């Protein structure tokens, strides 16, 4: 290859990367993390487009939660890039900054504020001033009230408004947590195992809920439940030992022999 051709190739490579970046809401490239010598993520790369609904599956310990930890600033990667909206480097920011940029996260273990009412849980998540003194002198506005009521309907908890979050069922807590994400008005939602511990009908409702949410936001869902992933009807990324094993429609992925071997076949 001549020198000129090599330069040209480099340039076109760069362009490709650039165009890939400019279309993504989330750009994860070559990310590796090691915990005490154990590689939880190994050169992980994947890209999410704006408005996309993406499911991520993979066996236990594949690194799904760790990937979310990286995106939300809880864990720092050893190497690799994580960009939000193609330009903001998430590896330099902390949890609160990333949340305020518009990335909401639901934990694997549902985490709500147990000694607050459902209403207050949503109020605390409501987008807007996060400063100490703003909070001290804050008074509930009509706009906030309306927004909370709307979310209560969306997450099917309107009659639990004044119930303590501690008294909700497991599935209802999952919904409340999703509702709290919506109140943050994020652009990207990361949802870790939203249907764990749900009944079949709740699972169906949740799939419906996430599909409708994904009309407005970009959503990344981590899940084990195959029926649920099928219901989501979206592109699937299979993780295994910290890197991407396969990507595509569920039917396509399910036929991949490597995927069958590590995950689906068992």
């Amino acid at each position, binding site marked *: 290859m001549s020198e000129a051709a090599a330069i040209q190739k480099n340039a076109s490579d760069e362009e490709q990367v650039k165009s890939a970046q400019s279309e993504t809401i989330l750009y994860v490239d070559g990310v590796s993390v090691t915990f005490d010598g154990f590689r939880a993520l190994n050169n992980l790369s994947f890209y999410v487009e704006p408005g996309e609904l993406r499911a991520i599956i993979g066996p236990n310990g594949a690194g799904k939660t760790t990937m979310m930890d990286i995106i*939300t600033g*809880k864990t720092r990667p050893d190497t690799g890039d994580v960009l939000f909206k193609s330009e903001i480097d998430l590896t330099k920011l*902390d*949890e*609160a900054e990333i*949340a*305020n940029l518009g990335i*909401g*996260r639901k*934990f694997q273990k549902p*985490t*709500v*504020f*147990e*000694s*607050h009412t459902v209403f*207050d849980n949503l*109020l*605390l*998540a409501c987008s807007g001033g*996060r*400063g*100490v003194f703003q*909070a*001290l*002198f*804050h*008074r509930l506005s009509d706009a906030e009230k309306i927004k909370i009521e709307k979310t209560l309907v969306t997450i099917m908890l309107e009659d639990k408004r004044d119930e*303590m979050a501690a*008294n909700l069922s497991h599935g209802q807590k999952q919904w409340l947590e999703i509702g*709290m994400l919506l109140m*943050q008005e994020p652009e990207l939602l990361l949802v870790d195992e939203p249907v764990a511990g749900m009944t079949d009908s709740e699972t169906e409702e949740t799939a419906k809920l996430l599909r409708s949410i994904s009309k407005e936001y970009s959503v990344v869902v981590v899940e084990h439940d195959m029926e649920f992933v099928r219901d989501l009807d979206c592109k699937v990324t299979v993780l295994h030992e910290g890197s991407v094993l396969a990507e595509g429609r569920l039917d396509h992925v399910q036929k991949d022999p490597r995927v069958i071997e590590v995950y689906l076949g068992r």
Partner: protein
Amino acid sequence: MTDYRQKYQMTPVIGWLLKDRGGMILLGILIAAAILVPASNLLLPESSAFHVPTWMVSLLGKYLCYALLALSVDLIWGFCGILSLGHGAFFALGGYAMGMYLMRQIGDRGVYGDPILPDFMVFLNWQELPWYWHGFDMFWFAIVMAMFVPGLLAFVFGFLAFRSRVTGVYLSIITQAMTYALLLAFFRNDMGFGGNNGLTDFKDLLGYSLQSDGTRAGLFVASCVFLGICYTVARGITQSRLGKVLIAIRDAESRVRFTGYRVEYYKLFVFTVSAVMAGIAGALYVPQVGIINPGEFAPALSIEIVIWVAVGGRGTLYGAVLGAFIVNYAKTFFTGAMPDFWLFFLGGLFIAVTLFLPKGVIGAVPAFGSADRQSLFTTWRKRRANEGGKA
């Protein structure tokens, strides 16, 4: 300006005071005590059955200071989960600020008759006042320092600890270390705070003799007033959205972070406010007991404060006040009647409360604990129903 106030502060204040039964009772008792106790001490003859002797006025005043200290601990522990085992340090620093003022008030009436230098400095052969003793001849300055110094220490300490995300047991341990370090420092004569004797032999405050009944009654009233004010401030904080964030931090700190709040700033705010309250308590305490020495920094005393709060009932504010009164009354009784048994009793009390009254004495009163009782009852019923279903 008035409009702003009315809109943002006055209405909610009245609103949440009315909702707060325990707080209303507390404020009512404080107002009544602030009127009746001094009146019966000063106006009724000693022979009257309703006469409150002066020693009792001072004893109650001392309890009020402890109550304020307990309130400050409950504000951070009960509402934000910060278990400080070093709050005695903020209390003592407030006390030292007041003590320095009272030392300067002695003037040339000390044993050595030096118009400027306190006795212990003359004794150490010091020629002039250390720089940090300047200004303490002014009452307002001492009061400001009684709040500022504990507040500043809490701010710096909290900034370092919360930013590094030190929580739980580790935080408790370093607060103990903090108060212990101050204990050692204040024991040293060359620190300029009177070494292990501390500051004492006070004569008067704002020109009024500390021995007179009137001054003691005045200090008692001041203690009632400041406890009332601090209660109202603390209640206001806990009822605001900020207070809800604090409770959220207590229950699920990382959730709060991922919701976009800077947890460390919230903790820093409430920790500093709490330290200022502890400082005020110390400043009110010293003129009523007549001495401040490094013993107040003892780690064990800071642990005792936490026991007051646990006994009264954590997370209610008024429970902390009640707990401070109960435990300190018991302490006064025991150290008089059976001094050897006090520590056993305190330990036993703490264990008993933890096992049988996890919500403290307040939680056992039906009128205050009713909501929780009901939920306890419902969970019990649910569990019964589940067991029934399985069988």
